[in-house]
């Protein structure tokens, strides 16, 4: 009965590889997000989708490509991984896009690029 789930929880890979992280929410929410938390624990938004439509795309390298096959899923594909991509990536969802809604976060995916 997990609300927001992510797979995998840990991902260790080498520079130059391509990897994907999957996210699913069973809350019936319209809006989903990807955040990156760096080694200093600073949490920064990367993307948001509302009903499968891209709404927010922060200044993220185009090696990062989100895909939302339906409003319950938001996946993140990363091409040509670099050392600086090492971080914890969190998926989140909220009932609607409006800022007055709380966000529900997944458990995170710790990505280590060697």
């Amino acid at each position: 009965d997990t609300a927001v789930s992510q797979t995998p929880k840990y991902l260790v890979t080498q520079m130059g590889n391509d990897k994907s992280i999957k996210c699913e929410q069973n809350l019936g929410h319209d809006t989903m997000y990807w955040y990156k938390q760096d080694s200093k624990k600073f949490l920064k938004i990367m993307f948001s989708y509302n009903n499968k439509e891209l709404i927010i795309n922060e200044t993220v390298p185009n090696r990062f490509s989100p895909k939302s096959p339906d409003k319950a899923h938001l996946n993140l594909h990363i091409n040509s991984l670099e050392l600086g991509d090492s971080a914890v990536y969190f998926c989140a969802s909220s009932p609607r896009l409006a800022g007055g809604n709380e966000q529900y976060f997944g458990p995170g995916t710790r990505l280590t690029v060697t």
Partner: protein
Amino acid sequence: SQKIEQNSEALNIQEGKTATLTCNYTNYSPAYLQWYRQDPGRGPVFLLLIRENEKEKRKERLKVTFDTTLKQSLFHITASQPADSATYLCALVFGNEKLTFGTGTRLTIIP
């Protein structure tokens, strides 16, 4: 550009006392301000939301205040317990609807 600062990177409080965490921002005021708790190895968990036209919000032992003149929010935990030990994040929502997080305060309640 907008800056959000949480006053202490780490805060130690004796059990039973009130813990007060600060979130300061620059420039224009947000429409909403949210507080989250994050435990090690886990995702943030929503605690409270306060709107720009609200001064104070309470939920059980938690209280949030919002002062748009001082550009500051205070987060209080009364009768603190060791289980309250975690990192607390403030997050501001401006017109573009995205959450902008502060740097976080790591709170430790000492038994």
